[in-house]
Structure formats: structure tokens, C-alpha cells
């Protein structure tokens, strides 16, 4: 008898797991928020609707940090050179060929002696020779990136350059140049155009006064003035002012600036505290008046403004990541996957996790599906029925139709016909087949609700199948990220102590792990891909699906092999003093496995991105044929291009 669960309709236990995986993205609002911090009619109108809220912004200048971490493998980088790409496909296929040579059915047991390895690499070299002699660029799969990862200091440097340029051209202070750039979304040419067209108007607009409007007494020394914030009489020498000349005591300035910085990005266009005074509080004044922590936050806002005003830059959404990615448009294929130095892979276009080979729309569709309330309801509908005695929703776990309601009810009934279980048994055709139901069906008394339920069930079964695997690969990927850290902090340290291996010599281990992480990511998305592949179509579509599943299965076992090799075999070299020779062999074996797996996955990604087009014309989908298909297809290509 199987466990039966009571579910209240709200509890949705099963979906908790789903919700955890629900993409945690919240769009972090970008440059749209006006940096015109002060009063405008626009903001007033907005405010009035919601009453008193003054739209205080999160005090923390850093943007939201998501939990996501991951990596996009080096091969995901855009190659603008088509030929180059084709060649890579060809070589990858060649690698698959040779792999077939090496690892056949009992791949796990295969021992890799030198001959194998030499044979393998010989074969690869041959193919390279056929393809092109420039194997350096092939090996360096990074090829031509469509993006650059920038450190915060890089961005700061660029920002500083822009500021210096404007400051030089307009002969104004850097602080004033910063004010101008802030007002023109960091477009230096706009600043220059506007400035030279009408300097006076621009000065007024941005609040850079040429002459003070408040004239301080000539002899500053011991003169006291009333600070109109604290109402204390303060010596002028203890006061401060911006270009307008309105004096306030230093203490009040510090607080005034601090509150503004606390309030958010509006501090970048902070104005003089005087009534309706438009004079801007520039960077130099902040430097003069603000506390150290406030100054740091101010600079953060300044950088943030610079990045957010520029469409070429995006902040890496990785948790606590400091890097910025610059994307350079103009490649011929649309690949938005970006890999940050923090190993977080994300899609430049939709800012979700990197998702090749699936496109942004599919990702959005899939994520929506995973989070949709409707799906949950359908799940409940399919997996629960009310107990015929007490009416509580009962979840069917699996297996047979014999349901037992939770205590205190304890009613036993048949899931199929909702009849009392006591009446089931030999008479109804055995416990596993309720022929009450079958009879009804045969007699056409078949319940329509049951039909709907059935269909919903089928749909859900399919969804669950793909979802579980998608989520499973995601958690494996996360685990692999953790494992990599352990590998680096523990195993690699031990290896270098034990064997005196240099970091460069141990890099193959990191490479293998990064490859595993990347493969998990790709594999994960192939399940979203598979979910949307047409199912009940014509023969062509069926064969496509079959081929897809074959490729996916192969990918899985490739990855498994690599994973196994690094996870298990590495222990042999951690403790005992194995001969150096063996360690070298291990390195060679793992490196080549990494390459082979990487190539396979790269090939897979391309095949899926092409919509498995080449296969659709062909029919059968048995693994043998499919396998030869992908080989012949790619080698045909190879011949066409290089023969």
C-alpha cells in the first residue's frame, strides 16, 4: 500500500521545490530613474498619486545581487568568422569520431595507455591538417569575443578619461565637467555641443554658477554668520558654500550631504540647501564636506551612473560580482551568452542565466511556465482527488490505485473509480486494474472529467519529466561549482605540495571542472529545448525528436565519463606517491576527455541552434544511424569547405 498524503489546496507541497528554483530575478531598474534629483513638476505629479511616499531609494548604492553563479565555457564566445566556425564544427566532429574509436561500449573500464592517447591525438592532428594549419586559434576557442569583461578600475579609468577630456576642452574643473556629463548621460560630445551653443543657459540648467549670488563679507576672518540650517552663529572660516556662495556651517553640510547620499542616486545632482537655490553640489564639494564612507558611496553612485547611462555596459548580475561587461555589437551570429570573470554566465540580451542553445524567448516562456500559478493548479487537479468520505484532497504518490486517507479518516478507496476498496479485489479483476473503470469506459459511460484529467495528466507528466531534469542539472551545476572550489582549495594544494606541480601544470583540473559546469548548464537548457520540440507531428518531426534525444543521451554519457574521471581518479594521486609517469598519463587523459567533451557539447549546441535542420530530412532515428548521420553531415561540411 502506498503512502497517501493529505493536501490542503493551499499547501502545494510539491511546488515548493519549484518555487525555490523559480528564477529569482527581479529587474533592477536601470538608468531610467531620473538623476534630476530635485523638484520637477513631473515628480510632483507622480508623487501626488501615491500620497506621501517620497520615493526614497534603497540606500545601498550597489545594485541587487542575485544568487546566481555559474560559468559559460570559453567556446560560447562569438566567432564572427564563419569559416572559422565551420572548421570548428568539423574538428569537433572529428574528435567525436576518434572518441568512438577510443571509448566503446565498456568505456568506463578502458585503460588509457600511451598508445591510445597518441592515437587519439594523432587522429586529431590529422584532421586539423585537413582543416587548416592555424590550429593555434582553434585550440584557443575563445577566438574572437564579442564582449570584454571590465574591472571596476577599468570603468573608473574610462570615466576619468571622459571627464578629463571635457574638462580640458571646456577649460572647467573636473568636478564641473562631471556635473555636465551627469546631466548629459555621459555623452561628452553632447556636453560640448550644448556648452558651446549656449554656455550661460547650460550653467543655469545644471547649477554651475559663474559668480556667487550671495556675497560674503570681505573680511572673512572673525566674522560670524547665521547658518540657516542649525541657526547657530558660526565663523565664516568654519562655513562652506558652493558656487552660489550661500554659507552653511561645516557640520550641517556634512549632515546634509550624508542624508542625500543615503537617499540614493539623486545625490549626484544635489543642490544647495538654500530655498530654491539651483547651485549644484559638485564632486569637489562632496570631497570637502562628506564623511569618508559617504564619499565612497558617492563614488559608487558615480560609477553606477556611468555604467547605466551607457548601453554598451552591463553589470554582471552575479552575486557580489564587481565586474562590468562591455558588449561590442556587430557579429554576424546572435550570441548573447557572456561569461564574466567571476564565472557567472549570463545572457546579455535577457539577463537570465546563460542559455545557449535555447533562445531568449524560449527561456522566458520556460521560466514563466515554471512559475505559473496555473501550472500548480493543474498539478493539484491531476494529482489529487477528494476523499469520497471526508472530502479532503488526497495526493496520489505513485503506483497502485489503492488509496488510504490520512488519519483520522483512514478511508480506503480506489483512485480510479473512487469506490470503496473493500469491493475491489478478485471480483473487479485484481488490485492493479479496476475494471469498474474499464467497464464504464467500454460502455461509453466514460466520464468526461476523467478524460480531461487524463489529458492534463499526460501534459503534466511530460512537463514534470523535463522540469525535473532541467532542475536536476541545475543543482548538479551548482554542486559542481562548489566542488570546483573544494578542488582548488584542497586537492590542488595537496597535489602541488606532493608533486611540486606548478599552478600552470594543474590548470587541467580547473579546466575539467569548468567544462563540467558548463556542460551541466547546456544540458539543463536542452531540457527546455526538448520540452518545446513538437511531439505529435509528422515523421520528420518525430525523427527530429528521436535524433535530439539521441544527442542528449550521448552528451549525458560523455559528461558522465569526464565527471567520473576527475572525481574518482584524482584520489589516486592525492595520497600515495604514484609514479610521476602515471600522473602525467592522468593529466593527458583528463585533458583529452575535457577537450572531447567540450567539443561534443559545442557541436551539440550548434546542432540545436540550427534547429537540427540537417537531420530533419532524414528519417530513421536509431542511435547508430543518427550517430553516423552527424558524422557524415559534419564531414561533408568539412569537405565542402576545405576540400
Amino acid at each position, binding site marked *: 500500500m502506498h503512502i497517501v498524503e493529505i493536501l490542503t489546496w493551499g499547501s502545494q507541497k510539491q511546488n515548493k521545490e519549484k518555487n525555490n528554483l523559480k528564477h529569482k530575478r527581479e529587474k533592477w531598474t536601470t538608468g531610467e530613474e531620473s538623476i534630476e*534629483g*530635485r*523638484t520637477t*513638476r513631473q*515628480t*510632483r*505629479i507622480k*508623487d*501626488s498619486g501615491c*500620497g*506621501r511616499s*517620497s*520615493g526614497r531609494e534603497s540606500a545601498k548604492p550597489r545594485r541587487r545581487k542575485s544568487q546566481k553563479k555559474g560559468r559559460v565555457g570559453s567556446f560560447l564566445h562569438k566567432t564572427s568568422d564563419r569559416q572559422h566556425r565551420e572548421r570548428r564544427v568539423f574538428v569537433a566532429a572529428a574528435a567525436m569520431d576518434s572518441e568512438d574509436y577510443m571509448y566503446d561500449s565498456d568505456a568506463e573500464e578502458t585503460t588509457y595507455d600511451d598508445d591510445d592517447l597518441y592515437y587519439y591525438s594523432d587522429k586529431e592532428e590529422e584532421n586539423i591538417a585537413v582543416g587548416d594549419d592555424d590550429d593555434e586559434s582553434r585550440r584557443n576557442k575563445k577566438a574572437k569575443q564579442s564582449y570584454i569583461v571590465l574591472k571596476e578600475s577599468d570603468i573608473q579609468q574610462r570615466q576619468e578619461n571622459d571627464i578629463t577630456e571635457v574638462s580640458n576642452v571646456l577649460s572647467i574643473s573636473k568636478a564641473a565637467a562631471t556635473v555636465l556629463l551627469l546631466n548629459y548621460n555621459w555623452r561628452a560630445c553632447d556636453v560640448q555641443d550644448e556648452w558651446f551653443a549656449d554656455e550661460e543657459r547650460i550653467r543655469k540648467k545644471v547649477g554651475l554658477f559663474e559668480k556667487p549670488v550671495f556675497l560674503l563679507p570681505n573680511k572673512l576672518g572673525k566674522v560670524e554668520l547665521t547658518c*540657516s*540650517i*542649525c*541657526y*547657530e552663529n558660526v565663523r565664516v572660516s568654519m562655513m562652506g558654500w558652493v558656487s552660489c556662495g550661500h554659507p552653511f556651517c561645516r*557640520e*550641517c553640510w556634512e*549632515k*546634509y550631504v550624508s*542624508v542625500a547620499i543615503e537617499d540614493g542616486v539623486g545625490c549626484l545632482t544635489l543642490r544647495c*540647501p*538654500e*530655498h*530654491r*537655490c539651483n547651485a549644484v553640489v559638485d564632486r569637489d564639494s562632496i570631497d570637502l564636506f562628506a564623511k569618508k564612507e559617504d564619499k565612497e558611496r558617492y563614488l559608487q553612485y558615480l560609477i553606477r551612473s556611468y555604467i547605466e547611462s551607457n548601453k554598451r555596459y552591463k553589470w554582471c548580475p552575479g552575486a557580489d560580482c564587481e565586474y562590468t561587461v562591455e558588449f561590442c555589437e556587430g557579429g554576424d551570429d546572435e550570441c548573447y551568452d557572456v561569461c564574466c570573470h567571476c564565472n557567472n554566465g549570463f545572457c546579455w540580451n535577457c539577463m537570465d542565466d546563460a542559455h545557449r542553445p535555447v533562445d531568449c524567448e524560449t527561456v522566458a516562456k520556460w521560466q514563466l511556465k515554471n512559475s505559473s500559478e496555473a501550472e500548480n493548479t493543474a498539478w493539484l487537479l491531476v494529482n489529487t482527488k477528494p476523499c469520497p468520505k471526508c472530502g479532503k484532497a488526497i495526493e496520489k504518490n505513485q503506483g497502485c490505485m489503492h488509496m488510504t486517507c490520512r488519519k483520522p479518516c483512514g478511508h480506503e478507496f480506489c483512485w480510479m473509480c473512487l469506490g470503496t476498496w473493500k469491493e475491489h479485489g478478485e471480483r473487479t479483476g485484481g488490485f492493479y486494474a479496476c475494471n469498474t473503470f474499464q467497464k464504464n469506459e467500454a460502455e461509453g459511460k466514460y466520464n468526461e472529467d476523467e478524460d480531461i484529467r487524463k489529458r492534463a495528466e499526460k501534459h503534466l507528466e511530460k512537463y514534470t519529466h523535463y522540469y525535473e531534469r532541467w532542475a536536476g542539472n541545475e543543482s548538479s551545476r551548482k554542486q559542481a561549482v562548489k566542488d570546483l572550489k573544494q578542488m582548488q582549495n584542497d586537492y590542488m594544494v595537496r597535489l602541488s605540495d606532493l608533486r611540486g606541480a606548478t599552478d600552470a601544470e594543474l590548470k587541467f583540473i580547473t579546466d575539467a571542472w569548468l567544462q563540467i559546469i558548463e556542460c551541466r548548464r547546456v544540458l539543463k537548457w536542452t531540457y527546455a529545448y526538448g520540452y518545446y520540440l513538437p511531439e505529435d507531428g509528422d515523421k520528420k518531426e518525430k525523427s527530429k525528436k528521436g535524433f535530439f534525444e539521441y544527442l542528449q543521451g550521448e552528451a549525458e554519457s560523455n559528461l558522465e565519463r569526464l565527471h567520473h574521471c576527475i572525481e574518482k581518479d584524482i584520489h589516486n594521486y592525492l595520497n600515495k606517491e604514484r609514479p610521476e609517469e602515471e600522473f602525467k598519463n592522468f593529466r593527458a587523459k583528463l585533458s583529452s576527455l575535457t577537450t572531447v567533451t567540450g567539443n561534443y557539447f559545442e557541436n551539440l549546441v550548434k546542432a540545436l541552434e540550427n534547429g537540427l535542420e540537417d537531420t530533419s530530412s532524414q528519417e530513421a532515428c536509431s542511435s547508430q544511424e543518427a550517430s553516423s548521420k552527424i558524422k557524415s553531415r559534419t564531414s561533408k561540411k568539412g569537405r565542402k569547405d576545405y576540400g
Partner: protein
Amino acid sequence: MQASRARLFKEYKEVQREKTADPDIQLACDDSNIFKWTALIKGPSETPYEGGVFQLAFAVPEQYPLQPPQVRFLTKIFHPNVHFKTGEICLDILKNAWSPAWTLQSVCRAIIALMAHPEPDSPLNCDSGNLLRSGDIRGFQSMAKMYTRLAAMPKKG
């Protein structure tokens, strides 16, 4: 906290000293709490509020004067920028245009100015805003006058 107290105390002394300086405004501090103030303001002449006396309540934040006080009408008033039910006021200087150089006294002055010059484009009271925006000045004025008479003038008898 200390700074806001000191500043409010100065404002309090100023108010005491110049009680007669502005006959349209009577500011008073709560006996037990320097962060609670009330004000009586006279409806500006040549407006539907003329002749009325309106009470305002101030709640002063600890960050004052770096942050603005919260002010609302205690007396019912029909005005496009005042919430009819709560008395909440929509005025830029009480929100993002606040300057620490403002005082409670000057806030009162700004509110009187707002009574004389409504801003129908940012209404908190949609009815009166609509009347004004649709150009029905007379309709608006008669409503505003009626409420002034009902709520802001001493009852006859």
C-alpha cells in the same frame, strides 16, 4: 536628534519673539513634545478661503531640518492639492524640493501661497481638480467657499 531639538528650540524662540510679525500665522508647539506643532493660518484674501481659519498639524522627523516635516490640514478644506479625507497636502517643498533652510513658519507661508494658487495638475482632491481643470472656476469657488463656511468659520449661534 540633538541637532533637530536645538533647531526646533530656536524656531520656538523665534516664534515667541515675533508673534505679531505675521498676523496670518499662529504657530504653537505641543507642551510636552517639541516634535509636534500646530498652526492656525488665515485663508488668503480674494480666495474662497477668505475669512476662514485653518488648523495645520506638524509632525517633525528626527532628521529635521534635513528632512521635511509632515504637515496636514486638520480643518476640512476643498482644495485640489489637499486630500479631502485626510488633509494630506501635496506640495513640492514638503517632498523632494525640501530645503533645510525652510522653517515651520516658512512652510506655513508656502501653504498659504498654495491656497491662493492651486496646482490642479497634481490633485489630491480629484473633484476639485477636475472642476478647475475643466475651467469651472465658479463651481470650484462655490464648493470651496461652502466648505470654508462649514468648517473653517466660527458657527453662528
